[in-house]
C-alpha cells in the first residue's frame, strides 16, 4: 500500500502541476484513530498529504454533484471545475451512475483508478474489529473502477460473486417478521440525514423529505414518519445503489441499512439484469421498459 500511495501521490501531483485539474479529491490522514478522511488537494504540496490505506472507506463520488453544481449566482464566465478523484471500485460504480444520470460532465473528470484490497471494518468507537475487511468490500463485485483515465498499478481484491445470501434469508421470512425487523432497526433513526448526504445518489436539489408544500414526511418523532423517509429514500435507490455502505458508515446510530438497500440491488440484478456500473448498459434501469419486465413484486409480494 505504501508503494500504491507513492504512485497515487505522483499521479495527483502531475495532474495538478500540469494544470490538468483544479482539484484532486482523495483522502488524507484523519484526526480519529483508524480514520482517513476526504480531502481536496489543490496544489502539488497538498498532493503530498494524500494517503492510501485501509481506512479510505468513504465513497468520494458523493462530492462530485456538489463540486459540479452550478452556483446560484455564477460569476461571468463560470465553467465547471476539472476534478480528479482517486476511485475505488465502489466510487467508480457511483461515478458511472452519476455520468449516466448527467450529474457529472465526464470530460471534466479524471478518474484515478486505485487498486483496492478492500477497506477495513472500523466500529464507531474506533476500536475493535481491526484487520477485518469491511462487509461491503467482502461482497464487492468490482473492486477496481472501470473507465479509469489514470490507472495506479497494484493488487486488488478478487471480485466477489454476487450471492445476496443475507437478503435471500431475510426475504424468506414472513412479511410480519420482515416488517418487525425493519421497523426495529429504523426506530433508532434520529433523522440527521447523514445516510442521505453521504450517498452519491442522493443529489436531489430538494429532497422529498425536505419539501414543505406538500410536506411528504412530517418531522414527528413517529415510526411511521421515519419509515416514510427511509422507504422514500430506498426506493429512489432501485437500480442505482452500488452497495458501497456509505450510508451505513455515515449513520451515527449504527443502523444497518445495507440489508434493505441490498434487497433493491438484488432485485435489480435478478429481475432486470442490472447492476449499476457493472452490467445493464448505459441507460438508467428505471428509464427502460420492456414488455417482459416483471411486475409480480407488486401484485404478489409473497410469491417466491
Amino acid at each position, binding site marked *: 500500500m505504501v508503494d500504491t500511495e507513492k504512485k497515487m501521490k505522483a499521479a495527483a501531483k502531475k495532474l495538478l502541476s500540469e494544470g490538468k485539474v483544479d482539484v484532486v479529491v482523495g483522502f488524507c490522514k484523519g484526526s480519529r484513530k483508524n*480514520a482517513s478522511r476526504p480531502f481536496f488537494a489543490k496544489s502539488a504540496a497538498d498532493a503530498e498529504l494524500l494517503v492510501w490505506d485501509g481506512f479510505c472507506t468513504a465513497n468520494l463520488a458523493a*462530492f462530485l454533484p456538489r463540486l459540479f453544481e452550478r452556483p446560484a449566482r455564477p460569476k461571468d464566465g463560470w465553467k465547471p471545475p476539472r476534478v480528479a478523484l482517486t476511485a475505488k471500485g465502489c466510487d467508480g460504480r457511483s461515478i458511472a451512475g452519476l455520468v449516466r444520470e448527467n450529474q457529472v460532465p465526464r470530460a471534466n473528470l479524471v478518474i484515478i483508478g486505485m487498486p483496492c484490497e478492500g477497506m477495513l471494518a472500523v466500529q464507531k468507537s*474506533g476500536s475493535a474489529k481491526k484487520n477485518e475487511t469491511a462487509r461491503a468490500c467482502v461482497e464487492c463485485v468490482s473492486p477496481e473502477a472501470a473507465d479509469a483515465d489514470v490507472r495506479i498499478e497494484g493488487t486488488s481484491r478478487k471480485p466477489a460473486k454476487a450471492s445476496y445470501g443475507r437478503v435471500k434469508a431475510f426475504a424468506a421470512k414472513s412479511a410480519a417478521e420482515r416488517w418487525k425487523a425493519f421497523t426495529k432497526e429504523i426506530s433508532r433513526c*434520529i433523522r440527521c*440525514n447523514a445516510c442521505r*448526504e453521504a450517498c452519491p445518489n442522493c443529489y436531489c436539489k430538494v429532497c422529498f423529505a*425536505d419539501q414543505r408544500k406538500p410536506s411528504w414526511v412530517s418531522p414527528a418523532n413517529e415510526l411511521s414518519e421515519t419509515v416514510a423517509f427511509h422507504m422514500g429514500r430506498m426506493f429512489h435507490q432501485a437500480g442505482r445503489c452500488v452497495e458501497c455502505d456509505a450510508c451505513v458508515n455515515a449513520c*451515527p446510530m449504527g443502523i444497518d441499512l445495507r440489508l434493505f438497500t441490498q434487497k433493491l440491488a438484488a432485485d435489480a440484478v435478478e429481475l432486470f439484469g442490472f447492476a449499476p456500473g457493472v452490467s445493464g448498459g448505459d441507460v438508467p434501469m428505471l428509464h427502460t421498459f420492456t414488455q417482459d419486465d416483471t411486475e409480480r413484486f407488486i401484485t404478489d409480494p409473497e410469491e417466491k
Partner: protein
Amino acid sequence: MATVALDRKNSKKLTAALLRLGRVRGPVKDETGVVLGDLTSKSDPVLEYQNFTLPAKREFFPQCEAVAKFEGDNVREAADGDRAAVVFGIRPCDALALSHVERVFCDEKYADPYFRGRRDAALVISLACDKAGPSCFCTSAGGGPASAKGADILSSNIGTALLFDSVTAKGESFLKKNKGLFRKPTAAELTKREKQAADVSRRMKAVDTAAAVKSLAAGRPAAFWEGISETCLSCGACTFLCPTCHCFDLRDDIGTGARLRVHDACMFATFVTEASGHNPRARKGERMRQRVMHKFSYAPENYDTVFCVGCGRCVEACPSNIDIRETLAGVTE
C-alpha cells in the same frame, strides 16, 4: 453535606429508592450497547460505559414534542408529555451542557414551560467518568471528568462502591431522606476518586479554547470557513448529537392537528431558508461559521461560557471527520 458511599452490591436498593420517585431514566444495555433507557426494579444499572451515543438533552428537550393541538378553530395547549422523575448516569459533560441549555430556555424573565417542567420534575444524578474517550476534551471546555455543574447529585463509581455528593438542595434532600442506604466513605475511597479524576484528566489532549474564543471574536475571513467546511456533507450528525445544540423549528402537522417543536440543525441547507425560497446561508461555509461562532463566540458574549462541553460526539460522528478541536486550533493560526 459530606460525601456518602453505597456498596455496589447494594445498587439495587438505590434503584428501588429512585423508582419510588417515579419514572427513572438510566443506563441500560440493549443490542447496540449502553443507552439511556427506563430502569425497572429488576434492572441493575450498568455502570461500565464511555458515554451514551445520544446526548442527555433529549430527556428535557425531546427531538419532537407537541406544543399545541388544533382542530378547526379550536386551539389548545398540548398536554405535558412523559416526565422523568430521575435521570441517572449521564456524564458530567452532559450535565454541564444541560446547565447551558437551561440558560437559553429559562432566564429571569422568561421560562420555557416545557423545558422548565421537565427539568424541575427530574432529579439529575450524573456519573463521573472513569476513563476518557478518544475524542474527549471536557477539561478544555469548562468541565472535567468529575465536574458537578448541571447535576443535582454527582456520583462516582470507584469499583466496589459508588460515592455521592449533593450539588443542589434537591439532591441533598434525596440523599438525606435515604440516608439509611448510605455509609461514610473511607479515606482510601475518597483518595481513589481523586486519583481516578486526575487520571482521566491527564488522558485528554488540551485544546486552547480561550485563545480560539478571543480570535473568533475578531471574526475570520470567508475563505477560512469555506476551507474547513469543504468536505462537510451538510448532514446533522454533529448537531443532533451535540448536548448543547438547542435550535428548533416549529412545524404544523395538519394530519394530527399538532404544532410540533422539532430539533433543527444549522448544518442543514434548509435551516434558515425563507418562505420566498431565499437562503441567507446558502453556502456550507456560512453554515459552518454559524455553528462554530454560535458555540465559541456568541455564547461567550451572551452567557460568558462556550456552548461546547468537549464530549467529542461531533468528532466521532462526522462522516468526513471534521474535528472541532482542529477547527479551534486553526482559528488562532
